[in-house]
């Protein structure tokens, strides 16, 4: 599976994902990639674009891509309302993540909550999220993932986790 999220100079967001699916799949099995709202979603109104790669059955059930956008919209609209929940999530993230979590709190909260939900269902995978302000965020709960980012203000970089 491969995926992209992008913000252009006009402030437009878009997301795309493409896959060969699961090796050895039978019976016409389809995962989350082509299911809008599960593996792929973008909404300028809510302010983010999401592309996912993971055990598709769980990403479909948890409607991951759509939920991240909705959570992000909520976090950016009512940041104070969720203080105790946010504090609980921030308290649970590893120390090295604290700075980035606080710095990018809404997108971190939205993405990490969703990936945690997938994990609790028994699924594995990761998402890339692009916000309307051009923030790229990566969240995953498994290894072997490869990522890359570039912007008009920062040089391109790639990483394999």
């Amino acid at each position: 599976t491969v995926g992209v999220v992008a913000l252009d100079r006009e402030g437009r967001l878009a997301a795309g994902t493409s896959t060969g699916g699961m090796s050895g799949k039978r019976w016409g099995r389809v995962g989350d990639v082509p299911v809008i709202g599960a593996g792929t979603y973008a909404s300028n109104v809510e302010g983010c674009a999401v592309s996912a790669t993971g055990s598709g059955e769980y990403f479909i059930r948890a409607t991951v891509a759509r939920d991240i956008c909705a959570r992000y919209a909520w976090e950016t609209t009512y940041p104070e309302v969720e203080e105790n929940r946010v504090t609980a999530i921030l308290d649970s993230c590893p120390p090295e993540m604290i700075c980035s979590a606080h710095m990018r709190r809404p997108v971190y909260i939205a993405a990490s909550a969703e990936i945690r939900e997938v994990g609790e269902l028994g699924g594995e995978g990761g998402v890339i999220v692009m916000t309307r302000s051009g923030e790229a965020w990566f969240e995953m709960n498994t290894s072997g993932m490869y990522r890359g980012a570039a912007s008009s203000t920062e040089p391109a970089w790639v990483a394999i986790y």
Partner: protein
Amino acid sequence: GGWSLAIHGGAGVIERGSLTPEQDAAYRAALDSALQVGAGVLDNGGSALDAVEAVIQVLEDDPLFNAGRGAVFTADGRIEHDAAIMDGTTLDAGAVAGLTRTRHPISAARAVMEDSPHVFLIGQGAETFARSQGLEEVDPAFFFTERRWRGLVRQLEREGLPVPVRPEGAPAEGAMAAVTPPLDERKFG
């Protein structure tokens, strides 16, 4: 205004540490060149949609990734592609599933979004629609890579399932063996 781009690839069961330096370098180079294509579109004022399609076309053509050429096989030895694209400005979206001949599934998804009244087309109907839009078609053997085929054979033997015959037109055994993407995306699609 500024622009921003992020890309990702699926997961593998092999830890990064077990990649050979050559494989590690191959993945990084592939991701880098895909990023450069997307950065070029956006830096020149192109749309986010165009950048998404252009980057994913590069990754679909690269046999290292489980999308397009280099995709994994179904249990009966075929390659079936799924893809989706969405425009955040309008909430327009297009998706395809089960394509076997369209060279760039992401372009088929975009055609569904822009040139059909629907959001999601699957199987033979999706293929017929993509053909009607003039999208490039290739023989299914174009997508074949030796390593994915061997991954399928190992998996089916492990599961005690019948191993399908080698697809017609597939390169001679071992011909594509040089393309050995290390991350076996058996874990998920």
